[in-house]
């Protein structure tokens, strides 16, 4: 060590810096990643909707009125009127026919207003859209009437385009958004899976649309895709492994929304 004292100060400083760096190089390897948490697992925020997935379920009618006060005052009367109308829709009309009715047109206007609002309003719009999917018929059937599924799919796609990235980090919206993605895959598949064969162009377009939702600009999994992987492990890999990328999501949607298959059963 004494000969060290004879060296230039810069050399001694470099020696100690290198020693510190060697130590740091070994120590950083022990840094552990944070726990695997879904946004919905984070601490509850004050004023957030409790158990938002219940509002997308079969018994949503029991809680939907909780959202009345969360919707903008200007939209509230229309919201209250339409939620009653939708939650009491009789006879399972075709989705396209109902959307063309006066209530359907009002719903589309309200839905788009809610989609552009805050996260409570976004959830309110999603609740209505899911109920429309449950109470109207969009199953193409043997005659391949895909227009109903297409219109429903377009509404879901618009909501996801607006909210997927933000919802992926939102404790209130993450689970409903992911559930909507799965349901969207189910509805989208209805537009291209035929009784015999499938519409390849439509399938490729759908796969591309989902890729845009689940990948960032560098082709890496987006925040939304990572949230999906945390909430539904293996689904993203399942999409890669199958020729029909949406099939895995459709299967998961079947488990999450039993009976919601476009036939009002």
């Amino acid at each position, binding site marked *: 060590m004494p000969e060290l004292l004879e060296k230039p100060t810069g050399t001694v400083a470099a020696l100690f*810096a290198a020693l510190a760096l060697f130590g740091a190089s*070994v120590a950083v*390897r022990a*840094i552990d*990643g*944070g726990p695997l948490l879904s946004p919905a697992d984070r601490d509850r925020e004050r004023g957030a909707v409790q158990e938002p997935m219940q509002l997308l379920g079969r018994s949503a009618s029991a809680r939907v009125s909780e959202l009345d006060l969360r919707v903008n005052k200007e939209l509230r009367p229309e919201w209250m009127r339409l939620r009653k109308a939708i939650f009491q829709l009789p006879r399972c009309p075709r989705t396209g026919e109902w959307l063309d009715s006066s209530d359907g047109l009002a719903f589309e206007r309200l839905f788009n207003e809610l989609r552009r609002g805050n996260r409570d309003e976004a959830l309110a719009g999603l609740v209505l859209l899911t109920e429309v999917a449950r109470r109207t018929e969009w199953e193409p059937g043997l005659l391949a009437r895909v227009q109903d599924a297409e219109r429903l799919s377009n509404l879901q796609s618009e909501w996801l385009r607006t909210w997927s990235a933000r919802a992926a980090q939102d404790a209130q919206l993450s689970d409903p958004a992911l559930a909507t993605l799965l349901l969207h895959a189910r509805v989208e598949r209805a537009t291209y899976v035929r009784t015999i064969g499938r519409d390849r162009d439509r399938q490729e377009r759908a796969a591309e649309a989902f890729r845009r939702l689940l990948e960032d600009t560098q082709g890496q999994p987006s925040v939304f895709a990572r949230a999906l992987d945390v909430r539904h492990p293996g689904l993203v890999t399942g999409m*890669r492994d199958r020729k029909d990328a949406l099939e895995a999501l459709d299967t998961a949607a079947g488990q999450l929304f039993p009976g919601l298959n476009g036939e009002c059963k």
Partner: protein
Amino acid sequence: MFACALIGVGGLLLGLQVDGNGEFVGTGFTSLGVGALVALAGIVFSSWHERGAPRDVITAFSSLGGFLGLAFVVSGVLAPGGGWMFFEVLVLAVALSRSEAARTALSRGTVILLALMLLFRLWISYQGSQHRWEVMSIEVPILSSLPFSFLAPIQSVELGEFTPRELGFPLAGLAFAPSLALWAAGFVLSVAGLAWRAHAAREYENDRIHATICELPPALAQLVERVLPESQWGELGLHGLADRPLRKRIEELMVARIAARHELDAALRSREILETTNPGGFSGEIYRALTQGAPPQASGARSEPS
């Protein structure tokens, strides 16, 4: 020292990755442990016949830097786990044992091999970040074009499958782009640091040998440096020797080289060596007559008239 600091920065970058939450996560101790083992084996086997050893703080620290640098680089390029890693360990152990690690740190071939392994690691990390858990997938002709989902298991062949656990991915997944930048920069800095360290160590040893020779009177020192040129000091085994063995080695080399020089001079001065250049025939006989005098008397040969 600066080269060691560079190695330290490289090792720091190679020890980190960025997870899906954008946070830094360590790459774990498994790959570092294996890398250290391979580096140790490489250094021990490649310097088996070397007699040098660190003698002071500077050379000891330099040796530590060389070992750690090699361990960081090897751990940075190894596949993080599974069968791939052990295959790479075998290849690297052989390559590093054959290279002159003690003298040149990393040969050009070894650096190319390490760079190829780093590329492989980056490729499988990329595949994993895309949720593709195989090195590559090849579609089976004809079968892959049939639209039947029950054929899916035989429509493509997956080569080199692995799992997220084998890749050592963080729980929140790997953010590939920033991790790639960290690893590539770490690799380059570590390799550059190793090369710089080896060069600096050589210079340091040369300075020490030069100082030892300069203890002789100036004219004599100049003669010794002409007989033992600086460019050969490493090959002559002068590097790394302690003071007394260094002096003894220089003495030995001087005795051997001067003796060889004397032998050569004697041989060159001898007339017999010119025999080897005699072309023979008429001109050869004249040449011999001029250089060696009269030829041996042959029977029947006429004597020169008086």
